[in-house]
């Protein structure tokens, strides 16, 4: 008798121990996955956050040298200001930082501390403040990428001079400017507003954000109605036979097709046969819609299937037609699920790169697109483009673009969760 009890206790302890072990395995697996996510986020954040501010250098610009009376600017149109020859004037304003420099070579080095658009920046300042320009104005000019990186501490100053892009004399200038308090940081608004550029300090994600938004909009407009209608037909109206089985299998297959194949399809048919404009969000959106459709259809069908059949019967029993029963009662209940599926599909499309490379959205585009028919980049392609670039400034910009992309993805997934929570039918 006692033997049996002891046996039971032993076997129970064994079971309890194995449960404990199992729990440890599970927690271990979860921690491992979480650790990687954390490492990814830390890595991207630590190398990307510095792209959100930029180095500017204070320069005193003596506008009196450009014109006899600075009040005259207020009477000039933007056109007139564009026609002013300001290049050597702007250069002289920069030389004013170090009046003692004589040698042409050193002057050139000094100019190269600034972004190549310094003349344009002074002109823009003049345009927007033309009504009250003083004799001398202090303007914050964008520093060149090399200076920016040195200032942020991303640049190894210890290298031999011939192994780095920034020269010793430039470092001397820079350190002196820092001592005089003329070097400062400001929020990098141009990074969020501008398109791509060959100069890292002038390159922005604005173009690719707008490009991505246009693309996603096209995907939404195309794939949401088509996906929902296809799902409703297949789930509610289609007869259950071999043809619909075949369609169902192929939709599932389509969801598993590598995305680059859709890119090839877009290249072959949408660009070459239909002749739609290359590199545009319209074409990108069409291609990504093909990729997103199966996701939306599968998610919508699943949520339609989850609507209890008793609801359909209830509607049919008071004399509703099949369509009324479906549209009035089944679809509204299934809608949160369908929307969630759609947003998840859109989030996938937002992060998709491969098909866009094939339809030419990998082009170098400086202008921020105005319509879905303008050539454009997109966020993931911008990451790809910048990750290949040699200049140091693109490193932080690549990570910052990934941060923006992740930010959008997190927002979309959050929206999906919120929609599901808020509109879910409670039985």
């Amino acid at each position, binding site marked *: 008798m006692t033997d049996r009890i002891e046996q039971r206790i032993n076997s129970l302890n064994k079971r309890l121990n194995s449960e404990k072990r199992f729990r440890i395995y599970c927690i271990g697996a979860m921690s491992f996955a979480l650790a990687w996510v954390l490492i990814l986020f830390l890595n991207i954040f630590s190398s990307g956050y510095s792209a959100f501010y930029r180095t500017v250098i204070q320069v005193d610009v003596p506008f009196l040298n450009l014109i006899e009376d600075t009040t005259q600017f207020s009477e000039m149109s933007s056109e007139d200001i564009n026609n002013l020859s300001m290049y050597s004037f702007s250069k002289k304003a920069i030389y004013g930082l170090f009046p003692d420099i004589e040698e042409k070579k050193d002057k050139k080095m000094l100019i190269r501390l600034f972004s190549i658009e310094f003349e344009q920046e002074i002109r823009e300042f003049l345009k927007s403040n033309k009504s009250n320009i003083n004799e001398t104005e202090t303007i914050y000019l964008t520093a060149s990428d090399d200076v920016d990186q040195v200032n942020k501490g991303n640049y190894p100053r210890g290298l031999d001079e011939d192994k780095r892009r920034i020269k010793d004399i430039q470092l001397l200038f820079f350190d002196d400017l820092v001592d005089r308090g003329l070097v400062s940081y400001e929020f990098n608004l141009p990074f969020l507003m501008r398109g791509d550029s060959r100069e890292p300090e002038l390159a922005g994600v604005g173009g690719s954000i707008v490009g991505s938004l246009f693309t996603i909009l096209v995907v939404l407009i195309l794939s949401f109605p088509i996906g929902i209608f296809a799902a409703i037909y297949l789930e509610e109206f289609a*007869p*259950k036979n071999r043809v619909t089985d075949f369609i169902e299998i192929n939709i599932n297959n389509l969801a598993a097709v590598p995305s680059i194949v859709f890119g090839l399809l877009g290249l072959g048919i949408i660009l070459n046969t239909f002749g739609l404009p290359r590199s545009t969000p319209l074409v990108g959106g069409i291609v990504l819609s093909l990729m997103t459709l199966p996701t939306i259809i599968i998610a919508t069908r699943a949520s339609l299937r989850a609507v*209890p059949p*008793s*609801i*359909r*019967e*209830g*509607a*049919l*029993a*008071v*004399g*509703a*037609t099949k369509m*009324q029963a479906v549209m*009035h*009662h089944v679809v509204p*209940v299934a809608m949160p699920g369908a929307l969630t599926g759609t947003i998840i599909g859109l989030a996938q499309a937002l992060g998709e790169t491969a098909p866009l490379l094939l339809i030419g959205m990998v082009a170098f585009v400086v202008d921020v697109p105005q319509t879905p028919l303008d050539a454009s980049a997109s966020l993931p392609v911008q990451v790809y483009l910048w990750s290949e670039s040699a200049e140091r400034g693109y490193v932080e910009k690549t990570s910052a673009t990934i941060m923006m992309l992740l930010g959008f993805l997190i927002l979309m997934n959050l929206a999906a969760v919120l929609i599901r929570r808020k509109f879910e*039918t*409670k*039985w």
Partner: protein
Amino acid sequence: MKSIKIKADNLNVYYGEKQALFDVSMYMEEKQVTALIGPSGCGKSTFIRCLNRMNDVIDICKVQGKIEIDGNDIYAPDMQVEQLRERVGMVFQKPNPFPKSIFENVAYGPRIHGIAEHKSDLEEIVVTSLKKAALFDEVKDRLYDAGTGLSGGQQQRLCIARAISVNPDIILMDEPCSALDPIATARIEELMGDLKTEYTIIIVTHSMQQAARVSSRTGFFHLGKLVEVDKTETIFSNPSDQRTQDYITGRFG
């Protein structure tokens, strides 16, 4: 003898290869409660779902034979099934209110059939239907709350209100009390007693006591066949078939 409302003639129903009903012929009297009893899977639900053609939804279901309501064949090609279901309402085993407000649940039928022209008419229909279903007093302060928030018995009465909102002649009830507790069941039974003054009621039930309490005629189904149909007292006191006798005395089922 009351006048005959529904008449089924040699009804055979197949689900694919499997035959579910064999040569069922019976009639149901107007403004009476007819109960259908029998063990699970005997075909009584299949039969009741033929009366408003709910079986049409099932692809593999095939119906042969004839069902006449007021002398019209409901399986005739020119019969519109939506119109039929307006005249033959149905209440299901599990309460299935729409996930909408109480008001919307009842207003849905009249609205799709265009019965109410004005909003005030619609409100009147909703109120009368809820009153007839003995639910109005309990929900009059919360007509715009979710119908799914009611208790099980209230939900079932809401479904009854929904069924009578389109002013049918016949109400089919497929085990309406099987998901309810005894108190809610008693209320529904009481309600049936009131409703039969206006409507012809066919009820499928597992409970023989319920059949005995509410119905005037009872049909006993077994293995897809209608074994016996007669006055309720006769079925329960002096059945003519041995199988009925065995079933009501609890030998099987």
